[in-house]
Protein backbone atom coordinates (compact mmCIF):
# COMPACT_ATOMS: atom_id res chain seq x y z
CA UNK A 1 0.00 0.00 0.00
CA UNK A 2 2.72 2.42 0.97
CA UNK A 3 4.47 2.03 -2.39
CA UNK A 4 1.71 3.91 -4.17
CA UNK A 5 2.32 7.63 -3.95
CA UNK A 6 -0.58 9.50 -5.32
CA UNK A 7 0.35 12.88 -6.73
CA UNK A 8 -1.84 15.16 -4.70
CA UNK A 9 -1.50 17.99 -7.18
CA UNK A 10 -2.48 16.09 -10.30
CA UNK A 11 -5.93 17.32 -11.32
CA UNK A 12 -8.47 14.56 -11.30
CA UNK A 13 -9.25 14.94 -14.98
CA UNK A 14 -5.60 14.68 -16.08
CA UNK A 15 -5.82 10.90 -16.35
CA UNK A 16 -9.20 11.19 -18.03
CA UNK A 17 -7.83 13.53 -20.69
CA UNK A 18 -4.67 11.49 -21.19
CA UNK A 19 -6.63 8.27 -21.64
CA UNK A 20 -9.15 9.90 -23.96
CA UNK A 21 -6.42 11.34 -26.20
CA UNK A 22 -4.42 8.13 -26.19
CA UNK A 23 -7.45 6.04 -27.18
CA UNK A 24 -8.45 8.49 -29.90
CA UNK A 25 -4.89 8.45 -31.26
CA UNK A 26 -4.86 4.66 -31.35
CA UNK A 27 -8.28 4.54 -33.05
CA UNK A 28 -7.33 7.14 -35.65
CA UNK A 29 -4.30 5.11 -36.71
CA UNK A 30 -6.60 2.46 -38.15
CA UNK A 31 -9.15 3.70 -40.62
CA UNK A 32 -11.21 0.57 -40.07
CA UNK A 33 -12.24 1.48 -36.54
CA UNK A 34 -14.40 4.41 -37.60
CA UNK A 35 -15.15 3.34 -41.16
CA UNK A 36 -16.28 -0.25 -40.60
CA UNK A 37 -19.30 0.40 -38.33
CA UNK A 38 -20.51 3.14 -40.68
CA UNK A 39 -20.14 0.97 -43.76
CA UNK A 40 -21.87 -1.85 -41.89
CA UNK A 41 -24.82 0.41 -41.09
CA UNK A 42 -25.16 1.64 -44.67
CA UNK A 43 -24.91 -1.91 -46.02
CA UNK A 44 -27.55 -3.30 -43.69
CA UNK A 45 -29.92 -0.44 -44.52
CA UNK A 46 -29.39 -1.31 -48.19
CA UNK A 47 -30.18 -4.94 -47.46
CA UNK A 48 -33.33 -3.90 -45.57
CA UNK A 49 -34.58 -1.89 -48.52
CA UNK A 50 -33.87 -4.82 -50.82
CA UNK A 51 -35.82 -7.08 -48.49
CA UNK A 52 -38.80 -4.74 -48.01
CA UNK A 53 -39.05 -3.62 -51.61
CA UNK A 54 -38.63 -0.32 -53.44
CA UNK A 55 -42.02 1.16 -52.47
CA UNK A 56 -41.12 4.55 -50.88
CA UNK A 57 -44.11 4.66 -48.54
CA UNK A 58 -43.37 1.19 -47.13
CA UNK A 59 -39.75 2.21 -46.59
CA UNK A 60 -40.52 5.45 -44.79
CA UNK A 61 -43.12 3.63 -42.66
CA UNK A 62 -40.43 1.31 -41.34
CA UNK A 63 -37.59 3.82 -41.41
CA UNK A 64 -37.49 4.56 -37.68
CA UNK A 65 -37.27 0.92 -36.66
CA UNK A 66 -34.76 0.04 -39.37
CA UNK A 67 -32.40 2.90 -38.52
CA UNK A 68 -32.44 2.13 -34.83
CA UNK A 69 -31.98 -1.62 -35.12
CA UNK A 70 -29.14 -1.14 -37.58
CA UNK A 71 -27.42 1.54 -35.50
CA UNK A 72 -27.78 -0.70 -32.47
CA UNK A 73 -26.18 -3.64 -34.27
CA UNK A 74 -23.36 -1.50 -35.67
CA UNK A 75 -22.46 -0.09 -32.25
CA UNK A 76 -22.85 -3.41 -30.48
CA UNK A 77 -20.64 -5.32 -32.89
CA UNK A 78 -17.92 -2.68 -32.65
CA UNK A 79 -17.96 -2.82 -28.83
CA UNK A 80 -16.22 -6.19 -28.76
CA UNK A 81 -13.00 -4.26 -29.40
CA UNK A 82 -13.58 -1.71 -26.62
CA UNK A 83 -11.43 -3.39 -23.97
CA UNK A 84 -9.90 -6.29 -25.92
CA UNK A 85 -6.67 -4.69 -27.10
CA UNK A 86 -6.03 -3.26 -23.63
CA UNK A 87 -6.74 -6.65 -22.12
CA UNK A 88 -4.35 -8.40 -24.49
CA UNK A 89 -1.40 -6.04 -24.01
CA UNK A 90 -1.81 -5.63 -20.25
CA UNK A 91 -2.69 -1.94 -20.16
CA UNK A 92 -6.10 -2.82 -18.75
CA UNK A 93 -4.37 -4.29 -15.71
CA UNK A 94 -2.36 -1.09 -15.27
CA UNK A 95 -5.55 0.92 -15.57
CA UNK A 96 -7.19 -1.12 -12.82
CA UNK A 97 -4.14 -0.87 -10.57
CA UNK A 98 -3.65 2.85 -11.04
CA UNK A 99 -4.79 5.17 -8.25
CA UNK A 100 -6.92 7.20 -10.66
CA UNK A 101 -10.69 6.92 -10.24
CA UNK A 102 -11.76 4.00 -12.38
CA UNK A 103 -15.11 5.57 -13.08
CA UNK A 104 -13.46 8.37 -15.06
CA UNK A 105 -11.10 5.99 -16.85
CA UNK A 106 -14.01 3.86 -17.98
CA UNK A 107 -15.89 7.01 -19.02
CA UNK A 108 -12.89 8.15 -21.08
CA UNK A 109 -12.60 4.80 -22.85
CA UNK A 110 -16.30 4.69 -23.70
CA UNK A 111 -16.30 8.32 -24.84
CA UNK A 112 -13.29 7.75 -27.12
CA UNK A 113 -14.94 4.68 -28.58
CA UNK A 114 -18.20 6.55 -29.07
CA UNK A 115 -16.39 9.36 -30.93
CA UNK A 116 -15.09 6.79 -33.37
CA UNK A 117 -18.16 4.58 -33.84
CA UNK A 118 -21.26 6.38 -32.56
CA UNK A 119 -20.54 9.84 -33.93
CA UNK A 120 -19.99 8.78 -37.58
CA UNK A 121 -23.27 6.85 -37.42
CA UNK A 122 -24.99 10.00 -36.10
CA UNK A 123 -23.39 12.25 -38.71
CA UNK A 124 -24.56 10.00 -41.52
CA UNK A 125 -28.23 10.67 -40.64
CA UNK A 126 -28.89 12.71 -43.83
CA UNK A 127 -27.83 9.64 -45.82
CA UNK A 128 -30.37 7.43 -44.03
CA UNK A 129 -33.10 9.95 -44.77
CA UNK A 130 -32.17 9.82 -48.46
CA UNK A 131 -32.08 6.03 -48.53
CA UNK A 132 -35.33 5.48 -46.64
CA UNK A 133 -37.35 8.46 -47.84
CA UNK A 134 -37.56 10.33 -44.55
CA UNK A 135 -38.55 14.01 -45.05
CA UNK A 136 -35.57 16.34 -44.66
CA UNK A 137 -37.39 18.30 -41.98
CA UNK A 138 -37.05 15.25 -39.74
CA UNK A 139 -33.28 14.91 -40.19
CA UNK A 140 -32.25 17.19 -37.27
CA UNK A 141 -34.50 15.23 -34.91
CA UNK A 142 -33.18 11.95 -36.28
CA UNK A 143 -29.61 13.11 -35.69
CA UNK A 144 -30.31 14.39 -32.17
CA UNK A 145 -32.13 11.17 -31.27
CA UNK A 146 -29.26 9.08 -32.56
CA UNK A 147 -26.75 11.32 -30.77
CA UNK A 148 -28.25 10.58 -27.38
CA UNK A 149 -29.34 7.08 -28.28
CA UNK A 150 -25.94 5.97 -29.50
CA UNK A 151 -24.54 7.09 -26.14
CA UNK A 152 -27.05 4.85 -24.33
CA UNK A 153 -26.15 1.96 -26.63
CA UNK A 154 -22.42 2.48 -25.99
CA UNK A 155 -22.76 2.55 -22.22
CA UNK A 156 -25.01 -0.48 -22.01
CA UNK A 157 -23.03 -2.40 -24.60
CA UNK A 158 -19.83 -1.71 -22.68
CA UNK A 159 -21.26 -3.79 -19.82
CA UNK A 160 -21.40 -6.77 -22.15
CA UNK A 161 -17.93 -6.00 -23.48
CA UNK A 162 -16.48 -5.80 -19.96
CA UNK A 163 -18.12 -9.02 -18.81
CA UNK A 164 -16.79 -10.97 -21.80
CA UNK A 165 -13.37 -9.36 -22.28
CA UNK A 166 -11.45 -12.33 -20.91
CA UNK A 167 -13.32 -14.78 -23.14
CA UNK A 168 -11.90 -15.73 -26.50
CA UNK A 169 -15.21 -15.48 -28.31
CA UNK A 170 -17.10 -12.51 -26.95
CA UNK A 171 -19.05 -11.29 -29.97
CA UNK A 172 -22.23 -13.34 -29.89
CA UNK A 173 -22.30 -13.44 -26.10
CA UNK A 174 -22.22 -9.62 -25.93
CA UNK A 175 -25.29 -9.65 -28.16
CA UNK A 176 -27.10 -12.17 -25.94
CA UNK A 177 -26.35 -10.14 -22.82
CA UNK A 178 -27.01 -6.63 -24.03
CA UNK A 179 -29.83 -6.93 -26.56
CA UNK A 180 -32.50 -7.41 -23.85
CA UNK A 181 -31.17 -4.31 -22.09
CA UNK A 182 -31.46 -2.29 -25.29
CA UNK A 183 -35.26 -2.56 -25.29
CA UNK A 184 -36.00 0.85 -23.67
CA UNK A 185 -33.46 2.62 -25.89
CA UNK A 186 -34.91 1.21 -29.09
CA UNK A 187 -38.49 1.91 -28.04
CA UNK A 188 -37.90 5.57 -27.24
CA UNK A 189 -35.34 6.08 -29.98
CA UNK A 190 -37.56 4.87 -32.79
CA UNK A 191 -40.51 6.64 -31.18
CA UNK A 192 -38.49 9.84 -31.36
CA UNK A 193 -37.78 9.38 -35.08
CA UNK A 194 -41.41 8.54 -35.73
CA UNK A 195 -42.57 11.64 -33.85
CA UNK A 196 -40.22 13.75 -35.95
CA UNK A 197 -41.53 12.23 -39.20
CA UNK A 198 -45.17 12.63 -38.16
CA UNK A 199 -44.68 16.07 -36.64
CA UNK A 200 -45.73 15.04 -33.12
CA UNK A 201 -44.35 16.81 -30.04
CA UNK A 202 -40.77 15.72 -29.46
CA UNK A 203 -40.19 16.71 -25.86
CA UNK A 204 -41.68 13.66 -24.04
CA UNK A 205 -39.62 11.07 -25.92
CA UNK A 206 -36.59 13.32 -25.87
CA UNK A 207 -36.68 13.60 -22.08
CA UNK A 208 -37.00 9.82 -21.85
CA UNK A 209 -33.93 9.37 -24.07
CA UNK A 210 -32.00 11.93 -22.04
CA UNK A 211 -33.05 10.24 -18.81
CA UNK A 212 -31.95 6.85 -20.11
CA UNK A 213 -28.60 8.32 -21.19
CA UNK A 214 -27.98 9.89 -17.77
CA UNK A 215 -29.04 6.71 -15.99
CA UNK A 216 -26.79 4.59 -18.20
CA UNK A 217 -23.89 7.00 -17.74
CA UNK A 218 -24.19 6.94 -13.95
CA UNK A 219 -24.95 3.26 -13.37
CA UNK A 220 -23.34 1.24 -16.16
CA UNK A 221 -19.70 2.05 -15.16
CA UNK A 222 -20.37 0.22 -11.87
CA UNK A 223 -21.09 -3.00 -13.73
CA UNK A 224 -18.33 -2.30 -16.26
CA UNK A 225 -15.74 -1.86 -13.49
CA UNK A 226 -16.98 -5.08 -11.88
CA UNK A 227 -16.58 -6.90 -15.17
CA UNK A 228 -13.09 -5.50 -15.79
CA UNK A 229 -11.94 -6.38 -12.27
CA UNK A 230 -13.19 -9.90 -12.76
CA UNK A 231 -11.20 -10.24 -15.99
CA UNK A 232 -8.00 -9.48 -14.06
CA UNK A 233 -8.91 -11.21 -10.82
CA UNK A 234 -8.28 -8.02 -8.83
Amino acid at each position, binding site marked *: MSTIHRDEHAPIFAAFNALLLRDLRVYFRYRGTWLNPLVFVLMVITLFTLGIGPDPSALSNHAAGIIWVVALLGIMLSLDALFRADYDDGSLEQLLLSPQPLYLSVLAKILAHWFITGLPIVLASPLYSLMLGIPFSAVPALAVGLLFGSGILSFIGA*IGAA*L*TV*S*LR*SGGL*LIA*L*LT*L*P*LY*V*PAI*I*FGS*QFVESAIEGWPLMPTFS*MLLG*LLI*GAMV*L*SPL*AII*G*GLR*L*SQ*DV
Partner: protein
Amino acid sequence: MASWQWFHRLGSPKWLSGTIDRWLPWVLSAGTLLLIISVVWGLAFTPPDYKQGNSFRIIYIHVPTAVVALAAYYVMAIAGAVSIIWRMKVADMALRAIAPVGAALTFLALITGAIWGKPTWGAYWIWQDARLTSMLILFFLYLGIMALHDAYQDSASGNRAAAIMSLVGTVNIPIIYKSVDWWSSLHQPASLKFTEESTIATEMLQPLLLAIPGAYLFFIAAVMLQLRVQIARSEKNTQWMAERSGL
Protein backbone atom coordinates in the same frame (compact mmCIF):
# COMPACT_ATOMS: atom_id res chain seq x y z
CA MET B 1 -23.54 -12.35 17.38
CA ALA B 2 -26.07 -15.04 17.85
CA SER B 3 -28.63 -13.26 15.71
CA TRP B 4 -26.42 -13.59 12.63
CA GLN B 5 -25.82 -17.29 13.14
CA TRP B 6 -28.48 -18.26 10.62
CA PHE B 7 -26.77 -16.12 8.00
CA HIS B 8 -23.32 -17.59 8.57
CA ARG B 9 -24.73 -21.09 8.55
CA LEU B 10 -26.18 -20.38 5.10
CA GLY B 11 -22.61 -20.01 3.90
CA SER B 12 -21.77 -23.60 4.68
CA PRO B 13 -22.42 -26.05 1.84
CA LYS B 14 -22.35 -28.91 4.33
CA TRP B 15 -25.09 -27.39 6.49
CA LEU B 16 -27.09 -26.53 3.39
CA SER B 17 -26.76 -30.04 2.03
CA GLY B 18 -28.10 -31.51 5.26
CA THR B 19 -30.97 -29.01 5.35
CA ILE B 20 -31.91 -29.81 1.77
CA ASP B 21 -31.92 -33.52 2.58
CA ARG B 22 -34.26 -32.89 5.50
CA TRP B 23 -36.65 -30.42 3.80
CA LEU B 24 -36.79 -31.58 0.19
CA PRO B 25 -39.35 -34.42 0.65
CA TRP B 26 -41.71 -32.12 2.57
CA VAL B 27 -41.43 -29.16 0.21
CA LEU B 28 -41.73 -31.32 -2.87
CA SER B 29 -44.76 -33.24 -1.65
CA ALA B 30 -46.52 -30.14 -0.28
CA GLY B 31 -45.95 -28.29 -3.55
CA THR B 32 -47.10 -31.20 -5.67
CA LEU B 33 -50.17 -31.71 -3.48
CA LEU B 34 -51.16 -28.04 -3.66
CA LEU B 35 -50.67 -27.99 -7.43
CA ILE B 36 -52.72 -31.16 -7.95
CA ILE B 37 -55.55 -29.92 -5.70
CA SER B 38 -55.69 -26.48 -7.31
CA VAL B 39 -55.49 -27.80 -10.87
CA VAL B 40 -58.18 -30.45 -10.32
CA TRP B 41 -60.33 -27.90 -8.49
CA GLY B 42 -59.78 -25.30 -11.18
CA LEU B 43 -60.29 -27.65 -14.13
CA ALA B 44 -63.27 -29.62 -12.84
CA PHE B 45 -65.11 -27.72 -10.13
CA THR B 46 -65.05 -24.02 -10.95
CA PRO B 47 -67.84 -22.58 -13.13
CA PRO B 48 -66.90 -21.72 -16.73
CA ASP B 49 -66.29 -18.07 -17.55
CA TYR B 50 -69.34 -16.38 -19.12
CA LYS B 51 -67.24 -14.90 -21.90
CA GLN B 52 -64.23 -17.18 -22.30
CA GLY B 53 -65.99 -20.49 -21.56
CA ASN B 54 -63.60 -23.18 -20.45
CA SER B 55 -60.48 -21.72 -22.01
CA PHE B 56 -59.86 -19.45 -19.01
CA ARG B 57 -58.93 -22.51 -16.93
CA ILE B 58 -55.35 -22.32 -18.14
CA ILE B 59 -55.08 -19.43 -15.68
CA TYR B 60 -54.34 -22.03 -12.99
CA ILE B 61 -51.07 -22.87 -14.73
CA HIS B 62 -50.32 -19.58 -16.43
CA VAL B 63 -50.58 -17.12 -13.55
CA PRO B 64 -48.63 -19.17 -10.95
CA THR B 65 -45.77 -19.86 -13.38
CA ALA B 66 -45.63 -16.21 -14.43
CA VAL B 67 -45.66 -14.94 -10.84
CA VAL B 68 -42.95 -17.34 -9.73
CA ALA B 69 -40.84 -16.75 -12.87
CA LEU B 70 -40.66 -13.05 -12.07
CA ALA B 71 -40.05 -13.59 -8.36
CA ALA B 72 -37.33 -16.11 -9.22
CA TYR B 73 -35.41 -13.43 -11.06
CA TYR B 74 -35.38 -11.22 -8.00
CA VAL B 75 -34.33 -14.10 -5.75
CA MET B 76 -31.54 -14.84 -8.22
CA ALA B 77 -30.46 -11.18 -8.21
CA ILE B 78 -30.42 -11.14 -4.40
CA ALA B 79 -28.19 -14.23 -4.53
CA GLY B 80 -26.01 -12.31 -6.99
CA ALA B 81 -25.78 -9.33 -4.62
CA VAL B 82 -24.90 -11.60 -1.69
CA SER B 83 -22.25 -13.26 -3.82
CA ILE B 84 -20.69 -9.91 -4.80
CA ILE B 85 -20.82 -8.40 -1.31
CA TRP B 86 -19.89 -11.36 0.91
CA ARG B 87 -18.26 -13.67 -1.66
CA MET B 88 -20.41 -16.49 -0.39
CA LYS B 89 -19.96 -19.79 -2.21
CA VAL B 90 -23.54 -20.85 -1.53
CA ALA B 91 -24.92 -17.67 -3.13
CA ASP B 92 -23.07 -18.53 -6.35
CA MET B 93 -24.52 -22.03 -6.24
CA ALA B 94 -27.99 -20.56 -5.68
CA LEU B 95 -27.56 -18.26 -8.69
CA ARG B 96 -26.55 -21.20 -10.83
CA ALA B 97 -29.41 -23.30 -9.47
CA ILE B 98 -32.14 -20.68 -9.94
CA ALA B 99 -31.30 -19.56 -13.50
CA PRO B 100 -32.42 -22.72 -15.35
CA VAL B 101 -35.51 -23.18 -13.15
CA GLY B 102 -36.51 -19.55 -13.64
CA ALA B 103 -35.93 -19.80 -17.38
CA ALA B 104 -38.08 -22.93 -17.55
CA LEU B 105 -40.89 -21.25 -15.60
CA THR B 106 -40.73 -18.18 -17.85
CA PHE B 107 -40.90 -20.45 -20.87
CA LEU B 108 -43.95 -22.21 -19.41
CA ALA B 109 -45.63 -18.87 -18.71
CA LEU B 110 -44.98 -17.77 -22.30
CA ILE B 111 -46.28 -21.02 -23.79
CA THR B 112 -49.42 -21.10 -21.64
CA GLY B 113 -49.98 -17.42 -22.38
CA ALA B 114 -49.78 -18.11 -26.10
CA ILE B 115 -52.14 -21.08 -25.83
CA TRP B 116 -54.55 -18.95 -23.84
CA GLY B 117 -54.23 -16.11 -26.32
CA LYS B 118 -55.45 -18.13 -29.30
CA PRO B 119 -59.09 -18.59 -28.19
CA THR B 120 -59.24 -15.28 -26.31
CA TRP B 121 -57.46 -12.83 -28.58
CA GLY B 122 -57.57 -14.84 -31.79
CA ALA B 123 -53.79 -15.08 -32.05
CA TYR B 124 -51.06 -17.00 -30.27
CA TRP B 125 -48.94 -13.94 -29.93
CA ILE B 126 -49.86 -10.29 -29.93
CA TRP B 127 -47.45 -7.46 -29.30
CA GLN B 128 -50.15 -5.24 -27.84
CA ASP B 129 -49.85 -6.80 -24.43
CA ALA B 130 -46.91 -5.38 -22.53
CA ARG B 131 -46.77 -8.33 -20.13
CA LEU B 132 -46.17 -10.81 -22.95
CA THR B 133 -43.33 -8.77 -24.37
CA SER B 134 -41.70 -8.17 -21.00
CA MET B 135 -41.89 -11.87 -20.15
CA LEU B 136 -40.13 -12.61 -23.43
CA ILE B 137 -37.39 -10.13 -22.51
CA LEU B 138 -37.16 -11.74 -19.06
CA PHE B 139 -36.69 -15.10 -20.77
CA PHE B 140 -33.83 -13.64 -22.84
CA LEU B 141 -32.24 -12.22 -19.68
CA TYR B 142 -32.29 -15.68 -18.07
CA LEU B 143 -30.76 -17.22 -21.18
CA GLY B 144 -28.05 -14.55 -21.27
CA ILE B 145 -27.07 -15.27 -17.67
CA MET B 146 -26.97 -19.01 -18.34
CA ALA B 147 -24.86 -18.43 -21.45
CA LEU B 148 -22.47 -16.29 -19.41
CA HIS B 149 -22.11 -19.08 -16.85
CA ASP B 150 -21.34 -21.60 -19.54
CA ALA B 151 -18.90 -19.36 -21.41
CA TYR B 152 -16.40 -19.21 -18.56
CA GLN B 153 -14.14 -22.23 -18.16
CA ASP B 154 -13.23 -20.98 -14.71
CA SER B 155 -16.39 -21.29 -12.68
CA ALA B 156 -15.40 -18.58 -10.16
CA SER B 157 -15.17 -15.94 -12.89
CA GLY B 158 -18.37 -17.22 -14.44
CA ASN B 159 -20.14 -16.86 -11.11
CA ARG B 160 -19.00 -13.27 -10.65
CA ALA B 161 -19.89 -12.32 -14.22
CA ALA B 162 -23.35 -13.83 -13.83
CA ALA B 163 -23.84 -12.10 -10.48
CA ILE B 164 -23.01 -8.71 -12.01
CA MET B 165 -25.28 -9.41 -14.95
CA SER B 166 -28.18 -10.43 -12.71
CA LEU B 167 -27.90 -7.11 -10.85
CA VAL B 168 -27.77 -5.16 -14.12
CA GLY B 169 -30.94 -6.97 -15.14
CA THR B 170 -32.62 -6.08 -11.86
CA VAL B 171 -32.09 -2.38 -12.47
CA ASN B 172 -33.35 -2.78 -16.00
CA ILE B 173 -36.46 -4.92 -15.52
CA PRO B 174 -38.69 -2.07 -14.21
CA ILE B 175 -37.41 0.26 -16.95
CA ILE B 176 -38.00 -2.39 -19.60
CA TYR B 177 -41.46 -3.09 -18.25
CA LYS B 178 -42.49 0.57 -18.16
CA SER B 179 -41.11 1.31 -21.61
CA VAL B 180 -42.77 -1.75 -23.17
CA ASP B 181 -45.97 -0.72 -21.41
CA TRP B 182 -45.78 2.74 -22.91
CA TRP B 183 -44.84 1.41 -26.32
CA SER B 184 -47.73 -1.04 -26.46
CA SER B 185 -50.27 1.46 -25.15
CA LEU B 186 -49.24 3.87 -27.89
CA HIS B 187 -49.93 1.23 -30.52
CA GLN B 188 -52.81 -0.54 -28.84
CA PRO B 189 -56.13 -0.41 -30.68
CA ALA B 190 -59.02 0.56 -28.43
CA SER B 191 -60.92 -2.67 -29.07
CA LEU B 192 -58.54 -4.75 -26.99
CA LYS B 193 -58.87 -4.42 -23.27
CA PHE B 194 -57.58 -7.02 -20.90
CA THR B 195 -59.10 -6.48 -17.50
CA GLU B 196 -60.25 -9.99 -16.64
CA GLU B 197 -57.78 -10.44 -13.86
CA SER B 198 -58.88 -7.52 -11.73
CA THR B 199 -62.51 -8.61 -11.79
CA ILE B 200 -62.05 -12.31 -11.17
CA ALA B 201 -64.90 -14.08 -9.36
CA THR B 202 -64.27 -15.57 -5.93
CA GLU B 203 -65.00 -19.15 -7.08
CA MET B 204 -62.36 -18.79 -9.73
CA LEU B 205 -59.92 -17.06 -7.42
CA GLN B 206 -59.85 -19.71 -4.68
CA PRO B 207 -58.00 -22.42 -6.64
CA LEU B 208 -55.62 -19.77 -7.92
CA LEU B 209 -54.77 -18.78 -4.37
CA LEU B 210 -53.79 -22.42 -3.77
CA ALA B 211 -51.91 -22.74 -7.03
CA ILE B 212 -49.60 -19.78 -6.44
CA PRO B 213 -48.10 -21.05 -3.15
CA GLY B 214 -48.03 -24.50 -4.76
CA ALA B 215 -45.92 -23.11 -7.60
CA TYR B 216 -43.64 -21.35 -5.12
CA LEU B 217 -43.08 -24.58 -3.19
CA PHE B 218 -42.49 -26.46 -6.41
CA PHE B 219 -39.97 -23.81 -7.44
CA ILE B 220 -38.17 -24.13 -4.11
CA ALA B 221 -38.06 -27.91 -4.48
CA ALA B 222 -36.70 -27.66 -8.04
CA VAL B 223 -34.04 -25.19 -6.89
CA MET B 224 -33.14 -27.54 -4.01
CA LEU B 225 -32.61 -30.36 -6.50
CA GLN B 226 -30.42 -28.11 -8.64
CA LEU B 227 -28.53 -26.89 -5.57
CA ARG B 228 -27.79 -30.46 -4.58
CA VAL B 229 -26.08 -30.97 -7.93
CA GLN B 230 -24.15 -27.71 -7.56
CA ILE B 231 -23.01 -28.64 -4.06
CA ALA B 232 -21.94 -32.10 -5.12
CA ARG B 233 -20.00 -30.63 -8.03
CA SER B 234 -18.12 -27.99 -6.07
CA GLU B 235 -17.56 -30.00 -2.87
CA LYS B 236 -16.67 -33.30 -4.51
CA ASN B 237 -13.18 -33.32 -3.02
CA THR B 238 -14.15 -32.66 0.58
CA GLN B 239 -14.16 -35.13 3.41
CA TRP B 240 -17.80 -34.66 4.36
CA MET B 241 -19.00 -35.18 0.81
CA ALA B 242 -17.06 -38.43 0.62
CA GLU B 243 -18.63 -39.56 3.89
CA ARG B 244 -22.07 -38.50 2.71
CA SER B 245 -21.70 -40.55 -0.44
CA GLY B 246 -20.52 -43.50 1.66
CA LEU B 247 -17.08 -43.69 0.07
